[in-house]
């Protein structure tokens, strides 16, 4: 059996990965499989495999060199295959859209149901360095000045990125309008969508009168809201539960309790990884891997149990690195916060190459990062957890944590990545800049694939210089 050589943490490119992959024993490769199927479930392969299948940007990206990170990337890039495989083995494919984090908890409580977020395809044009999906969206009438999540309409139109879902749950309301319009275009194509209402949180700032204390509830992130908002969401989740019961013929509320425990376990691990990463003297994990891990909280990349195992493994690795004081960036890397996720993964590499280190993030998925209460009625617990959502409240609530860390001098700069024309970016960014004015703030529009020009690099360099 080949003995795995001790590897010092660093970021490596594709070719180095391929060489290093040869060192990995066959048993390790065979051990990791999705859907627990050893016949066709193996996903541990070098990123070069996916580059050959079209993810050309992998040639430019640099990754964490750990086996744990490789396992994660193999699993993440394997999702499309996994979804089609799920269809072959008669699992129900449930497209959950728009709420980013809570509806999958309901779906996972039903046997053989696989939730996935089509909007996570927004990275695809960048990983593939291809504008094909974006061009198709234009042909479907979607304006170019809008969120990159418009590629979801192209994916539904092309039918080659995921099997036709057995159920599509479209969350709309106090959420991003770009995406609500994308889903309406999908419905116009003939797909049936179960629309679900997302209410605005309506903290006391958005009431005319000072509310009585007993009329208010408080979320884990410290946001106050009228109790009625919980009722709205609880009823919507009961509606979803009934739809899943009708689809599967199974109605076992106790499974929801178990699922919540499992989801909380994952969220807890990820919260610890984020904290370890932020507090460590040397950054143990690159920002690109960390962002990918955070988004795993949404639905576990279509195999929740295997994703949980992957995150456990990464958590142990990060702990080991922190204990040894080793990591992937320089010790003097400048701590910054990142607001709104970047559709182009290359930007996360670039910012670190320029000397920064991401110690906090607000990737519009606050609702997927916190614990779901386990001692109250599960549907209401889900509603209460979703009410922490990033996009259903004000910009001040969104950046409250980051503002606190700036005040403690833990964050030296803030990077806001926007999409031109995206409804919440255009309205929130200037306010967020004013709110976080104590430190240098840079707001850039993520360009389409191939669009990271020298001009953006220069702006980033100037930003880093300013912070220094």
């Amino acid at each position, binding site marked *: 059996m080949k003995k795995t050589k001790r590897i010092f943490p660093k970021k490596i490119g594709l070719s180095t990965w391929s060489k290093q992959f040869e060192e990995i024993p066959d048993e390790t490769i065979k051990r990791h499989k999705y859907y627990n199927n050893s016949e066709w479930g193996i996903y541990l392969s070098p990123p070069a495999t996916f580059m050959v299948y079209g993810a050309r940007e992998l040639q430019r990206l640099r990754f964490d060199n750990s086996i744990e990170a490789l396992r994660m990337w193999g699993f993440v890039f394997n999702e499309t295959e996994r979804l089609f495989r799920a269809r072959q083995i008669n699992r129900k494919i449930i497209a959950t859209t728009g709420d980013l984090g809570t509806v999958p908890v309901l779906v996972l409580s039903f046997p053989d149901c696989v939730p996935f977020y089509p909007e996570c395809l927004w990275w695809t044009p960048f990983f593939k360095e291809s504008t094909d999906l974006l061009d198709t969206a234009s042909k479907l*009438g979607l304006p170019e000045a809008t969120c990159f999540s418009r590629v979801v309409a192209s994916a539904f139109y092309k039918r080659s990125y995921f099997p036709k879902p057995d159920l599509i749950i479209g969350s709309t309301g106090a959420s991003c309008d770009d995406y609500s319009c994308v889903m309406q275009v999908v*419905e116009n194509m003939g797909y049936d969508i179960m*629309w679900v*209402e997302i209410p605005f949180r309506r903290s006391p700032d958005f009431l005319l009168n000072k509310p009585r204390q007993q009329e208010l509830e408080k979320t884990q992130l410290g946001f106050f809201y009228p109790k009625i908002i919980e009722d*709205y969401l609880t009823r919507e989740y009961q509606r979803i539960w009934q739809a899943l019961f009708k689809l599967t013929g199974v109605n076992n509320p106790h499974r929801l309790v178990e699922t919540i425990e499992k989801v909380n376990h994952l969220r807890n691990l990820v919260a610890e990884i984020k904290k370890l990463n932020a507090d460590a003297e040397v950054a143990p994990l690159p920002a690109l891997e960390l962002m990918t891990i955070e988004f795993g909280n949404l639905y576990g990349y279509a195999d929740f149990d295997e994703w949980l195992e992957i995150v456990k493994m990464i958590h142990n690795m990060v702990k080991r690195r922190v204990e040894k004081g080793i990591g992937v960036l320089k010790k003097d890397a400048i701590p910054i916060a990142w607001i709104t996720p970047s559709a182009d993964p290359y930007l996360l590499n670039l910012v670190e190459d320029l000397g920064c280190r991401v110690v906090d993030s607000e990737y519009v998925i606050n609702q997927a990062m916190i614990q779901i209460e386990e001692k109250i009625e599960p549907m209401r617990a889900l509603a209460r957890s979703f009410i922490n959502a990033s996009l259903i409240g004000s910009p001040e609530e969104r950046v409250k944590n980051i503002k606190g860390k700036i005040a403690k001098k833990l964050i030296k700069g803030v990077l806001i990545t926007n999409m031109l024309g995206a409804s919440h970016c255009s309205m929130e960014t200037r*306010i967020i800049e004013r709110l976080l004015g104590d430190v240098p703030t840079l707001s850039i529009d993520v360009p389409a694939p191939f669009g990271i020009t020298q001009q953006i690099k220069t702006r980033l360099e100037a930003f880093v210089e300013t912070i220094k």
Partner: protein
Amino acid sequence: MELTGLVGYTCSYIPVELLSATGLRPYRLLHGDINLSQKGEQLVRVDACPLVKSNLGFILENQKNFACIIGSTGCDMSRRMIEVVRFMTDIPVYLFNNPRTENFEIYANEIDLLVKELEQYFRRRFDKGVIQKECERWEKARQRLREIDARRRANPSTLSTKTFHGMVRYFHQGEIENITSEIPQEMSYKPRVYLLGSPLSYEAGPIIDLIEQRLRICGDFSCGLSRGIYIKVREKTLDGLKQSYFHQPPCIFRRPNKKYYEWVEKDVKETKSTGIIAIVLDYCDNFDFELLSMEKGLTLPILKLKSDFSYQNLSQLKVRIDAFIEVLGSYRGGIV
């Protein structure tokens, strides 16, 4: 026009009767002016909706005139405008959860909460008598405007949309007593078109003028024009208000939005329109996304005009309108 004691609001699903019951003047935020828009750009990015930017500019210039502003989640950017208003001014704001889905239960609940908030804030009781009086008052104004609009929709049309736009403005700005009774005779045999798209602003005169030089707009589905007056409050009670406002001509932002297309298709037939003009504001997601569906769904030729209120492109718009007239001509002649 004297601007004091205003209750600003942003959406057709917010019952104007309830705002009027406060004793103040309901004022629909529908401004679309390039100077106001540039003032609004101090607070939001340039790729925000021009209507939102203009309204922000207007609010900044008239802060002391607003007793409060009621926003809704009907459109994401307009909802976030309320967040900017709260962050940048001292104007009290309230955000109304306007369900996008067929969820009447949430809507009815939210109306009750809005009534409670207004009653408490303005120290007034909205009892049955108050509600009935306001319902009658505003229904009478809508009925009056529907009668005027019937002239515009008639065949041949005897009222221009330019004039009608000036009249309906009184409704949106809460001055229903100023709705005139003298209606000019503006007979026209020009080709009949139907207008839809982003809300038409108070300052939309120039673009309506340009269109009506050679066409006659004889019907519309626009928040700045007639959409609001086709809310018919039959039962003059709070429940009556809830039902009629919830089932008003459906916003394109409802999910699903089939009913919007059904309503427009029916209305286009009723007005015997031969073409459709869609005026879409820059970065206005809801209409920008739907133009292709409109072309497929609505059988008539559609002219899409983009605007950011700068009207610098009026001459280009004129050329395009002229070309559209030729299309209408050949369409009517059965060539297309």
